[in-house]
């Protein structure tokens, strides 16, 4: 009932085009994450949904109703801003109450809602303080409470965790996932952090240069990237992408039109997978050049003969000295891309992969 549809939406500032012909459907009740590098248009998209920016062209509708002429306050949505945007002159209580007051909620009802919400987010003892006397995490909660108290159908969040320290951020991630489950509302969450996107989203919309590069579940976006941008953006370290022409003929057969191939760092092994025939593996001669210890995993950087380099990630493996090694990659785990950096479905074993639809990438 509160699905959000963007049809051919574009946005330009003067003659600078930010968003070009965006088509996107956000399912009701989903936790959709808009992710991408800075300047990709994700925030602008969110702000257009909120009504804080007017689209240059196209249609935005929420729950089947066109929002083009509807003011932000009447769209039945709430927004959590990156810097929280709390009203500094008002106490926590007044901050939460302001939206209710404007929506003409009776006083007794307001009191009840505020008490309830303060209890939920653990702000009861801070209700009469001004935001400046709260810590970052507490301000974050006020911002959330201010959004939640209006019981909107849609929550918009613009990098709400980026001002918190790492530990608190992780905690808030989990709380937001739980909150989403509890409220059942539609969440649209903007971030540049792929970890946030992967860990929280039920649906990920990856954007670049004002276009959608891929729209998928976290699983799909990681395992079935549709193009080199996606494969590169998602994953730490990103997928190893090598130019076929510079790889010295290590691949006996490549799909028609392939210009690049790639594999995830964790798919490269130092020993061949047992029970795998030689022709089912890609064998690379490499020299390990650096090593990052990250606790349970180790990431190596390895130089290849043609001057290209790859990352190798292995879990629970003994430390290796930096020396020449052989790397083995199961050919099943190879991805091929054409000259336009679009994914080429490898062969019959990769059925289910489709060529990117024109609508979401063009």
């Amino acid at each position, binding site marked *: 009932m509160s699905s959000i549809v963007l049809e051919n939406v574009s946005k330009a500032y003067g003659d600078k085009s930010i968003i070009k012909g965006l088509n996107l459907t956000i399912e009701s009740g989903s936790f959709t994450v808009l992710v991408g590098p800075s300047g990709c248009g994700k925030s602008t998209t969110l702000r257009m949904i*909120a*009504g*804080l920016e007017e689209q240059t062209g196209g249609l935005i509708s929420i729950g089947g109703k066109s929002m083009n002429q509807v*003011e*932000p*306050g*009447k769209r039945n*949505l*709430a*927004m959590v*801003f990156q*810097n929280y*945007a*709390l*009203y*500094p*002159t*008002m106490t926590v209580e007044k901050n939460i109450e*302001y*939206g209710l007051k*404007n*929506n003409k909620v009776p006083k007794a009802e307001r009191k009840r809602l505020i008490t309830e919400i303060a209890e939920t987010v653990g702000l009861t003892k801070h209700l009469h303080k001004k935001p*400046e006397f709260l810590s970052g995490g507490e301000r974050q909660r006020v911002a959330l409470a*201010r959004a939640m108290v*209006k019981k909107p159908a849609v929550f918009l969040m613009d990098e709400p965790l980026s001002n918190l320290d790492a530990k608190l951020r992780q905690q808030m991630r989990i709380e937001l996932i739980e909150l989403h489950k509890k409220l059942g509302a539609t969440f649209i969450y903007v971030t540049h952090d792929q970890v946030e996107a992967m860990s929280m989203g039920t649906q990920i919309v990856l954007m670049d240069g004002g276009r959608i590069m891929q729209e998928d579940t976290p699983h799909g976006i990681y395992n079935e990237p549709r193009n080199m941008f996606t494969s590169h953006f998602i994953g730490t370290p990103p997928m190893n992408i090598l130019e076929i022409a510079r790889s010295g003929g290590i691949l006996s057969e490549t799909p028609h039109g392939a210009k690049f191939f790639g594999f995830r760092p964790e798919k490269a092994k130092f020993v061949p997978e047992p029970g795998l025939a030689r022709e089912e593996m890609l064998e690379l001669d490499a020299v390990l050049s650096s090593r990052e210890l990250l606790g349970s995993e180790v990431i190596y950087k390895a130089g290849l003969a043609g001057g290209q380099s790859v990352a190798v990630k292995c879990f629970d493996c003994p430390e290796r000295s930096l020396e020449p090694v052989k790397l083995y990659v199961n050919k099943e785990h190879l991805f091929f891309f054409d000259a336009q950096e679009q994914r080429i479905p490898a062969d019959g074993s990769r059925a289910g992969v489709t060529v990117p639809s024109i609508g979401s990438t063009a």
Partner: protein
Amino acid sequence: MKSRSKSMKLLPYLLVAPAVMILTIFYIYPILYNVYLSFFTWNMRGPMKFAGLNNYIELFKGRDFLGILSNTLLYMVMDVTLVMVLAMLLALFLQKNTFINRFIQTLSFTPNIISLISVSLIWMWLMNTDTGLFNYLLSLFGAGPVGWLTDKQVALFSLVLVSVWKSVGFNALIITSALGSIPAHLYEAAALDNASKQSVFFQITLRMISPTLFFLILMNIIGSFQVFETINIMTQGGPANATNTLIFSIYKQSFEYYRVGYAAAMAVVLMAIVGLITIFYFKALNRRVHYR
């Protein structure tokens, strides 16, 4: 070691000494001397004669003084109210950064750099009952003439008009910069909170710039008590004492009638009024001001 720590103890006093000396010579001593003078009868030449509270008694018994006091307060209220309201409106209008707005901002600030003497002379001509521009313009509509500076009912207001004209631009400039420092995301949050324009203005805009307004109002109050040039040039306190204020009266009594003790007593009263208003103002409003 011991002598060193002793000299270290003296150092702070040494550092504030110049400032304290200047304050003492130019502020504290004159104030105390003024209070001292108010208990004497003196004509600046002859011997000073102790008068006890006579100056004060004469002050409060005299009919003129209450009129002067009410002129002063009326001028203050009209001046501060008009300046603040108009400056606020102008500042809100000037927020958009267009060519016209920049032009108007410059224009409205200009009076502030002109000397009050010139201002007074020009407005005196504009407001002249028989030959002034204002009455000429009014006559085109068949109205007037208004005795801008000669009508008892109007003269004080005319002086307020000059003061407002001179200071609105400056006040608007300060308010504009305060408005500009309000983060845009607050307005966005308010938009999402379905806030009406009115509510945004009173709940967010006004409260965010309250420290600036607080400061400007205080400055304008104090400034309005000190009005002198315009009165001295344009009306000389007339007609029939209608524009006679405390400061002008103090000047007249001491430097024209040589009633130094009487003028000093008036100055003490003025100081008390300004002090009381300031204290009251801080007590009443300061807690409602939001400081970042």
